[in-house]
């Protein structure tokens, strides 16, 4: 049994840091992985100008198909692959309805969620009470066993690294390739892209299928790694959070990771703060201190006055929270407030986007959700 390490007044800073880095951080990364996958997929979809609200339905489909495949074949890899295929196929139903038959994207997306939840429940009926084969962890000799860093960076299953690599690939695709430029053009102005000879509908269908595949893999991660079991309706709203993260990230791949860690991490944090009786203020102080040091380290060569002010502000905040943590060691933040923060931040971003001038700055694809017909 693990030693109980909380950030109480009688626990040293080193121990607290150790706990956060080796225990909390890895769980937060795992909790964020389904969100990273689903949000990255939806980001590509929205970048092509399509709003697919059926993420929840595609995720739950991936969860059930991935689970069934992994149980039947005994190989989780096959589960993840078929989950991606299933998510992609379900997304193509949405694609056919919205792109070819020109149905309303919002209504069709909502219907896709309901359809996915129902179909998954039906398919998974005989698969309750079974546990799937374990997904392989990356185990590098010596490195994975290294204290702190090994647990922080090299203790995950391969999907975690795959998801991060995917985000990098999507960034590279969107910003550094011609195909990515075409995709963005379709999302910004489909009529212009059409006039230039690009096949708007085909490009959008491909983006929709990619989004579905990512969501399917994210769902499979829930049923194969995080829980691990199949249970009806097990996504329990995570698809909607993935949608919110895309907006929160203002359609930028790098920020998707931050959003997913924030949304996934806060859930984990509030559970662990309760279980470990952690001091919230102390944690805030440590996080702020880490961010401050990180900022200095990253900008060491080009520290402008503005950056120094930021660093000084963050450092002061860190010191202030630490002083408060020492003054009120018994301070407890009601967990409800902590669960609210990601949603509050999403609301702030949404409000900012609704103002037209900031909309462009925030990167929203101009044709998002608009119907395209070649004749118009």
């Amino acid at each position, binding site marked *: *049994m*693990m030693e*109980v390490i*909380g950030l109480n007044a009688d626990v040293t800073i080193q121990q607290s840091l150790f706990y956060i880095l080796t*225990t909390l951080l890895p*769980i937060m990364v795992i*909790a964020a992985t389904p969100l990273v996958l689903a949000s990255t997929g939806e980001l590509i979809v929205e970048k092509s100008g399509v709003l697919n609200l059926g993420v929840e339905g595609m995720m739950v489909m991936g969860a059930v198909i991935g689970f069934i495949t992994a149980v039947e074949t005994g190989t989780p890899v096959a589960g993840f692959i078929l989950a991606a295929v299933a998510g992609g196929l379900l997304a193509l139903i949405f694609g056919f309805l919205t792109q070819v038959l020109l149905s309303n994207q919002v209504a069709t997306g909502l219907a896709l969620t309901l359809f996915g*939840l129902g179909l998954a*429940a039906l398919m*998974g*009926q005989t698969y*309750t*009470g079974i*546990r799937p084969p374990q997904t392989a962890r990356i185990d590098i000799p010596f490195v994975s066993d290294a204290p702190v860093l090994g647990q922080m960076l090299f203790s995950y299953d391969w999907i975690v690294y795959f998801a991060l690599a995917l985000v990098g690939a999507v960034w590279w695709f969107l910003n550094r390739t011609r195909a990515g430029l075409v995709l963005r053009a379709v999302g910004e102005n489909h009529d212009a892209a059409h006039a230039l000879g690009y096949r708007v509908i085909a490009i959008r269908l491909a983006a929709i299928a990619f989004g579905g595949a990512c969501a399917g893999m994210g769902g499979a991660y*829930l049923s194969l790694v*995080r*829980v*691990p*079991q199949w*249970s*009806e*309706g*097990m996504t*329990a*709203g*995570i698809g909607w959070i993935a949608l919110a993260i895309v907006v929160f990230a203002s359609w930028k791949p790098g920020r998707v990771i931050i959003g997913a860690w924030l949304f996934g991490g806060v*859930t*984990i944090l509030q*559970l*662990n703060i*309760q*279980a*470990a*009786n952690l001091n919230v203020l102390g944690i805030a102080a440590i996080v702020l201190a880490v961010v401050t040091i990180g900022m200095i380290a990253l900008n060491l060569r080009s520290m402008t006055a503005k950056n120094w002010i930021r660093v000084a502000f963050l450092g002061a905040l860190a010191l202030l929270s630490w002083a408060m943590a020492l003054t009120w060691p018994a301070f*407890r933040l*009601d*967990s*409800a407030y902590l*669960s609210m923060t990601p949603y509050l931040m999403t609301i702030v971003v949404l409000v900012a986007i609704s103002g037209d001038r900031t909309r462009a700055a925030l990167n929203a694809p101009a044709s998002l959700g608009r119907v395209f017909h070649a004749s118009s």
Partner: protein
Amino acid sequence: MKLLKTLGLATALTLATGGVMAQSDDPLSVGFIYVGPIGDFGWSYQHEQGRLAIEEHFGDAVETTYIESVPEGDSERVIRRMAQDGTDLIFTTSFGYMTPTLRVAGQFPETMFEHATGYQRADNVSVYSGRFYEGRTVQGILAGHMTESNVIGYIASFPIPEVIRGINAAYLAAKSVNPDVEFKIVWVSTWFDPAKEADAANALIEQGADVIMQHTDSTAPMTIAEATWDNLGEDETGIYAFGQASDMLEFGPNARLSSIIDNWNPYYIERVQAVMDGTWESADSWHGIGQGTTTIGAFNINIPEDVAAEAQAALDAIAAGELHPFTGPVNKQDGSVWLAEGETADDGTLLGMNFYVEGIEGAIPN
């Protein structure tokens, strides 16, 4: 004026058809609203068993419907639609449906409502629940004996009296057999979210808990506990857990110590019969182990004989009405006296319970 006339005509027609319906052989329509999916293998699953029992018992004389995964915040719309569809008797099966049920009931005085685990009634709204805390006493005895780390993890949903009652009953029982026992409580603010419940179980295990209790609806915590039984060395044991609302044995053949099983079938059949006989009236039903509403699942074979016997004795005493889970002396968390020596808690206090008993650490969230 014309509109008023039309409305009046419509009302008259409705009343007339309603009158005809009561006399004809039309099947009685019974509806259910569930907070989770029927396949949660916990709370909602068990209510669904009750609905199926009604179908089997009454055959063609009833027509049942259900709507699953209805969020508490959005339930009024769903309940109203069910009432508008002409459902005669509606069971709303989650605590958070209380106010919505009462609101809709006010608008549909001819429809009969049954609200589970609430405390507010109306002429056409009954409340019913189980004395789950009696089962928590049995669980507490088992947990107090079986824990080696003396840390028991408790996954709690919402800070409502029913959940707090369960925590207190389990703690008092565990403490009575193991004075060193400590409870770690995590509030997850949901009834059904497998991923979050699994994370909570992991967080508790990480903090040293080796027995997990849950007051949420999914089987995820049981699955997490069962996973710790893989690849164990000799003489090692994994994490234990309890089935909640349903038996959950297939989810934790090694991990499951016992379970609290809600058996709604007799009550549901009785209430539907009452509507058919025309004897239905607003009532308050709160039965426990003695009446069979709360049943206890078989004990894990790994439990030592004397421990199982002790838990069984408590179970029998509660069933016979000889033992009350809340018997003094019991103090509140702040040290003030709640129950004097030999005094037992009255139902009023239990129904409104908003405090921890002495010895439990932490605060109840608002």
